[in-house]
């Protein structure tokens, strides 16, 4: 055994104090370099355009929070990195120092109190600021419009309650610029997450409860709507579009939605009979609208979760169309997955609705 030998080893190593750097001079150098690096880092962090376009008042507040985080974070990282690099530069073991030890400094209470207290104060300050911003962005606004957002594998349906009790349903989100809205989010199956990156706000769509958030859109344009919570096979494709439009355009859109869809050419006998095109674009109130996932020129939809029906159903007969609705995995379009389209449309749609949909699709795709 080598115990005696090893226990003596500590004694053998002596610190050549006089030849090692003492550290004080380095601290001044470090402060200067650290300050310059921090300034550069903060400048860079603020110049970089991190975010997608900001299209709500909430987004502007949140982007400012991020700027504050950059200003606080960069010096912390610079501090640590500079100390590490300086230690490596000044205090690395040089030839002849193989058996040298550093000075036996065990601690410094004052220093330890400082580096406990300062971060604590800084963090509490950050949290206070975050609390103020949070309260602001979640504040109720006068005259906000209610919009129900319903998540289902793998599409969103947007429902605009109307005074007459017949809500407008759409798979495109239309919002009026400058007008505050509150989204009430629900799910029909698993958890989804309703996120519009341009608004910076998101919330889970949770089965069994209703969640909500508020935004005030303030920039015209089209922005992606994204599902941010893993919801199954089609999760990656659960993307739709939000349109922020002017008051006039919004009113025109709403007016158009309120009109019953023009009966599909030659389809059905009118009256109470279900209309295939309406079913396609809006669903029946229970089912997801076909147009939420499928492109169809005749219905004016342009989603890409599922196959493009102008291509996929071209020249197909009614039997094939019916099978594709009630048993979607029977024939799978190349490049798409089985198991993404719900298999329960036969239950969700009444036989009359299914017939109307099939005949509409047959006509619309030139079958």
């Amino acid at each position: 055994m080598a115990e005696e030998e090893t226990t003596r080893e500590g004694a053998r190593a002596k610190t050549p104090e006089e030849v090692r750097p003492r550290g004080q001079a380095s601290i001044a150098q470090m402060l200067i370099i650290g300050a310059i690096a921090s300034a550069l880092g903060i400048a860079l962090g603020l110049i970089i355009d991190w975010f997608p376009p900001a299209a709500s008042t909430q987004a502007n507040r949140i982007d400012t929070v991020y700027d504050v985080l950059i200003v606080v974070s960069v010096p912390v990282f610079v501090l640590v990195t500079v100390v590490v690099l300086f230690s490596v530069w000044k205090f690395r073991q040089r030839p002849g120092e193989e058996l040298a030890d550093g000075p036996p400094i065990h601690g410094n209470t004052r220093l330890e109190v400082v580096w406990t207290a300062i971060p604590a104060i800084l963090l509490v300050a950050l949290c206070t600021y975050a609390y103020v911003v949070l309260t602001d962005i979640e504040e109720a606004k006068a005259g906000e419009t209610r919009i129900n957002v319903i998540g289902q594998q793998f599409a969103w349906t947007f429902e605009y309650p109307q005074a007459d009790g017949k809500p407008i349903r759409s798979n495109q989100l239309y919002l009026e610029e400058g007008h505050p809205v509150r989204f009430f989010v629900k799910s029909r199956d698993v958890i989804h997450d309703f996120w519009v990156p341009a608004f910076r706000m998101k919330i889970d769509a949770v089965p069994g409860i209703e969640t909500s958030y508020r935004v005030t859109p303030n920039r015209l344009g089209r922005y992606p709507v994204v599902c941010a919570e893993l919801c199954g096979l089609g999760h990656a494709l659960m993307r739709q579009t939000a349109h922020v439009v002017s008051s006039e355009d919004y009113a025109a859109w709403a007016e158009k939605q309120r009109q019953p869809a023009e009966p599909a050419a030659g389809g059905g006998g009118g009256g109470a009979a279900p209309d295939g095109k309406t079913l396609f674009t809006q669903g029946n109130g229970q089912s997801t609208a076909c147009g939420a996932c499928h492109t169809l020129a005749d219905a004016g939809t342009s989603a890409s979760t599922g196959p493009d029906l102008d291509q996929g159903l071209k020249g197909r007969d009614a039997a094939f169309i019916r099978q594709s609705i009630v048993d979607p995995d029977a024939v799978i379009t190349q490049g798409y997955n089985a198991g993404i389209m719900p298999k329960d449309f036969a239950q969700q749609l009444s036989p009359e609705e299914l017939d109307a949909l099939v005949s509409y699709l047959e006509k619309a795709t030139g079958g």
Partner: protein
Amino acid sequence: MTAKLRAPGWYRAALWVVIGIAVAYGLTLLIRGLYGWDPILKGDTVLQIALITVPLTFLGGIGCFDYWLYWAAGRATRPEDHSNHGAYSWKDYFKVNTDHKVIGTQYVVTSFFFLFVGGLIAMLMRAELAQPGRQFVDAEAFNGLFSVHASLLIFLFIIPVFAGLANFVLPLMIGAPDMAFPRLNALSYWMLPVAGLMMTASFLAPGGSFASGWTAYAPLSTTQPIGQVFFTLGVQFAGASSIATALNFLVTIITMRAPGMSFFRMPLLVWANFSTSLLVVIATPFIAASQFFVLLDRGLGFNFFDPTQGGDVLMYQHVFWFYSHPAVYIMMLPGFGIISEVLAVKSRKPVFGYRMMAFSLLAIVVLGFTVWAHHMFVSGMQNWIRIPMMVTTAIIAVPTGIKVFSWLATLWRGVLKLDTPMLWALGFITMFVLGGISGVSLAIIPFTIHVSDTYFIVAHIHYVLFGGSLFTIFAGVYYWFPKMTGRMYDETLGKIHFWTTLVFFNITFAPMHVIGIQGMPRRVSDYAEQYADWNLIISIASFGVGLSTLVFLYNIVVSWRGGPRAVANPWRALTLEWQVSSPPPVFNFDAVPTVVGGPYEYGVPGAVHGVFRKGAEVAQPAGASAAPQSDRE
């Protein structure tokens, strides 16, 4: 042959596995028959039962329960002759062994095997993500890949590899001959390969592997094909292993310290594992519960998470994160311990503020239980809970900050030996601070609302778990490699490994912050065109990370087989594990060490941590002569 089938080992394990499968069929037929259900034999049901019975019969067959079963049955237990201590050939590592050093090596090697499996899965994912659209795998396979990737690397790599390193060095560090419960220790190890194989094999399950992420949120997880159960039950075995090991560490640390080893003379690695073990025994039962809920909900229709039947979807997340947030510290605190060891030795200075280092660990243990709902800021839970969770989440950065600043002060004015373990330790400090900064940002609710469930989160957890935990693991593996194998690794290859990993790691994960903020959600096999450029860069760099790991593999394999012999104490360290030969004697210490001072008294003239008094030789346990040490080599 009969003797082989009766004695513990692989033959009996194979036989018992067959019995386990038969039991699964039998139970299915019996119960479905009694209820008169049609069809009487259902593949899903058999598979689900087999996933419970087969691991148990395997563990029995290989010999994990022999002693206890003899004892419980009132049969004569074979006297403990310690003949299965030590490993004399590579075959001994494939047997149930009660030597903590053998178990430690088994743990580390098994964990690294799963690191490579998980890493290969990551390469597949990055190949798919190199371009938008679908190239190599479909959505089903992709969802399986990221779920298995995360599950393996969390439950089969980071958590157990720390347990493995500690298994090897912790008893040596406190001057103990072994862990407190060596047989429990062996059982803890053998549950790991079971859990790992189960998760990996899920790709073969009908309907594909589990695809609801490692978080397995209900009700997605409760409506998945049978592959989900491979996770649900795999986690039970990994978790049971984790709990048993933690209990073992706690009892070992509390009761088996050498004379003079007071709590405040313990090396910080011991403190770190003490803290981690507290977290494990308190928190891990919660993930077990969450997965049992999923199992019962999915398999037996318990409707825990079906709101139409009075279920509560958010409850799953609360129970899950009550474990899985502390789990973040379970995956980090042992690394903190490793860094403290390496920095003190390689800087030739005492750890700065030793007591605050120990107390900050305990502070993290306590605070770690108060922050779980910060994973749920956008989950739809009650709004007011977010505020206290934000404050605690920010405040937990204070004890972590104390540790970082103390490490920096440890470096200052030291004599820094910049070899491989030290490079990893320094790399850890800088990378971990980046992960910590993004972590504090994620406490700030208004920012989190935007970036939760995006690639920003992916970047954050990889800076914490890869730049953080994995860097400490590499530091620890290089640092203790001479002690564990008796060989020196190749210093040049070690440095190449470090620099390539550092560079490619940053090119891989730093851009993920950017695309996350820009709006790319995580867990997607396909993405909008605007993220294509960054994703291509990330994918290319990730293959660099993969290649750099091959350098490590080569270095370790070649050095273990034929590296230069290691001396007892190549680093001139003071802690006890370096005061015995490399590798250590079968029973660790020929003489009981007496601890006379702190573990890091570098630079104090004449300071020692432990001494071996003449005449304090350990009386060898009865029957130890059955394994004479002269058998070594």
